[in-house]
């Protein structure tokens, strides 16, 4: 699991690569939360373009961060999810809470 963080003003972009299961969920959760607090992040963009697998541990990381971001009245986006990840996000209903876009560029354009 490889995670890249990029901050643009009060927005944090998190690009995850690999399989998002219980092995890595805890570490990613801690790393994102630390950045949210330290850098007073309001908006979160989660790039899942290179995530090949997700299960309920991974979904928990996404939903937990969504709750934190909405608590500070920020916005969260999911970007680049491909099958089978996209299918699981739809199945869990996360797509109804968090807008999903094809690319980071698409969010900049909205």
């Amino acid at each position: 699991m490889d995670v890249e963080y990029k901050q643009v003003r009060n927005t944090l972009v998190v690009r995850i690569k690999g399989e998002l299961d219980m092995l890595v969920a805890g570490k990613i959760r801690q790393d994102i939360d630390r950045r949210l607090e330290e850098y007073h992040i309001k908006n979160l963009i989660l790039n899942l373009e290179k995530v090949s697998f997700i299960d309920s541990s991974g979904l928990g990381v996404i939903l937990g961060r969504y709750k934190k971001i909405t608590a500070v009245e920020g916005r969260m986006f999911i970007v680049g999810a491909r099958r089978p990840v996209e299918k699981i996000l739809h199945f869990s209903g996360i797509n109804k809470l968090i807008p999903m876009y094809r690319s980071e560029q698409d969010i900049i354009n909205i």
Partner: protein
Amino acid sequence: MNVKNYARFEIMSVPENVALARSCVAALVSQLNCTLEDLEEIKLVVSEAVSNCIIHGYEHRRDGKISILVTIYDNHTVEITISDFGKGIEDLDKALQPSFSTDPARMGLGMTFMKSFMDEMEVNSVPNEGTSVRLRRSFLIGDQEAYA
């Protein structure tokens, strides 16, 4: 219905083994006439079942034993039994309810995924002895009949 192939293996209750378990099971199930999408669903349910053993059965203890039996039958059916020998489930009916979770980080979706993506799911649990989940799914034959 005869057994066409089977594999039985045992893993330690460490998070590193969740990916190993789902890949091994998917490799065996790929001998059936199923799609890549079917295999992804199998990987997901195995991941959920093994994560449950580690998180609930052993409460993250790393020295537990998880046993996995995958049987392929000649009617294009797979049966996967995943067992732990951990603390067991006190109230099974409650644990099987949608979105019930003792671990909010996982949204209580594990059981829902298993029920949704498999044709059959049976959970047996004895407190302080362990929990076993038996999952069954048919490929091709069931679909052909459904569309007949």
